[in-house]
């Protein structure tokens, strides 16, 4: 890494810190506590019901990041994500994954993997998207597959994540434990650089 890119990462770190700080301040609405005063009437009832069910079951293990019309976002620790996913499938009737996106947060030294769950079979959920986010530790000098950046795979719960998780593995270097096929998917076979969607990987000329 050159000094220039280091400078850039430092810059970004400060901004990311800001970002996370804002997020924390925005995060409140824990549907668990019926305390918040002004945001209470805005919360859509059905979505709040979903959030309440999750919080009721898992309590402290999950955080509700937002409740918007048709969208619920939750955040889960990496040890509990498997359990939570099983709960969403069996009890909440979400049956497939729309998308799996990896997001790099160098300031937190973490990589977030976001699952967007949706349902075909339950007509009440047809508008809904449940966002399950979980984070893996990030290493500055990654060796994809052989470092601490690991998460449990959800493939045994939602079969549809198979290719998505392979994509996240090569794009961000998150190894999915329990995934039977952690191979490269889109990048060339001889790719030897950093995983390209990490923030410290810069496109040429940028």
């Amino acid at each position, binding site marked *: 890494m050159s000094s220039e890119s280091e400078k850039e990462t430092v810059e970004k770190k400060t901004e990311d810190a800001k*970002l996370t700080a804002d997020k924390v301040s925005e995060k409140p609405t824990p549907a668990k506590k019926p305390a918040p005063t002004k945001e209470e009437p805005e919360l859509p009832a059905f979505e709040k019901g979903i959030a309440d069910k999750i919080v009721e079951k898992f309590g402290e293990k999950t955080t509700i990041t937002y409740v918007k019309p048709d969208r619920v976002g939750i955040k889960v620790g990496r040890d509990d994500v498997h359990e939570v996913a099983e709960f969403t499938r069996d009890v909440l009737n979400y*049956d497939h994954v729309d998308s799996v996106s990896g997001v790099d947060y160098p300031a937190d030294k973490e990589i977030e993997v976001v699952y967007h769950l949706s349902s075909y079979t339950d007509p009440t959920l047809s508008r809904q*998207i449940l966002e399950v986010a979980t984070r893996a530790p990030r290493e500055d000098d990654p060796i994809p597959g052989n470092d601490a950046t690991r998460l449990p795979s959800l493939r045994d719960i939602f079969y549809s994540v198979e290719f998505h998780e392979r994509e996240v593995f090569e794009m961000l270097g998150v190894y999915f434990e329990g995934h039977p096929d952690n191979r490269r998917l889109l990048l060339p*076979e001889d790719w030897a650089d950093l995983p390209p969607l990490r923030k410290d990987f810069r496109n040429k000329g940028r």
Partner: protein
Amino acid sequence: MSSPTLPPGLAIQKADERIMTLNVGPQHPGSGHMRIIVQIDGDYIVACDPDPGYVHRGEEKMAEYRNYVLNIPHLERPVIHDSCNILYPYVLGAEELLGLEVPERAKYIRVIASELNRCVYTQYWLAIYGIFLGHSTMFMWPAGDRELLIDLLEKMTGARVTHSYFVPGGIRNDLPANFEDVCLRQVNYFEKRIKEYADVFYENPILISRTEKTGILSREKAIGLGTTGSVLRASGVDYDVRKKEPYDVYDELDFETNVMKSGDSYARSRIPWLDMMESCRIIRDALQKMPKSGSVRVKLKPNPKGALGSVYKRVESGRGALGCYIISDKKPEPYRVKLSVPSFRNLIALPQLLIGEKLGNMPSVYWSLNYWPVEADR
């Protein structure tokens, strides 16, 4: 399938002397821009490993360097013949982050452009499907009729395929004078033409014998694999984002979704054709209900900054539900843009469908997935 260290070409191990490994693509008339590694036992496929990525251009990374408006041209390139639809979720998401309210007339024009584009996409897909099945007439007819709608889109947007028509806050320019009449006339003629495809293609006994009962995807599997669009609806799941989560003005328009139960290649090839007729209906309805005048775009500040937060929007494209996940951190450039594309989601069904199928059925099964490799690779 095997150990993760092997490169894709070697991943399938030789189990038996009888088994032969075939590379289909990337230079192959029946593969498009991708490679499918199949293992065959005699004439039957026993293993299949799709290898996409030949057109992976790093759109998602590029989107992190450009602001919300500059992202438009390159984000539509993955499916240039469906460019309005692939931009749709991105533009909807950007509008929510930038806090823009779209004028009513722009919403209707967007719907018209999006439906025209769906027809243009489906016609191209149908033409290639004809070629894949060795049916040259079915290449010529859709490829020729498609040009009618391209003419319309060219009048609207100024470009044949890469429109860049949707911008955050509305559309780029208003309709040209007299567009409604021309559009109605062309669309009516187009609908008459596509109805004729039934005789030459869909009721053709050769086509039926080649596609019926091949590559059957059961309802449970279609749901479990998370397939979308025509693949899902051909398996008997009535799910269309336009109906289930209407965006813009789709809730005011009159249309139906098409569902078939059999889940074979024939059903998958028929659903997009039926959808085109619904698109014609939507266009006519939208032309009627559209406000005749009014602004089509709200003014956008130069280099607008997105609000803090994330947004996940989805629309129904020519291939299925297309989602866009944008994370913004109060900067002109999005922090992360993720396109969840239907082709990529449908690709997972390919090994399931091909195993146990004859090699000769591979092109028909593969293309019936409504798969566009460039989009899947991004």
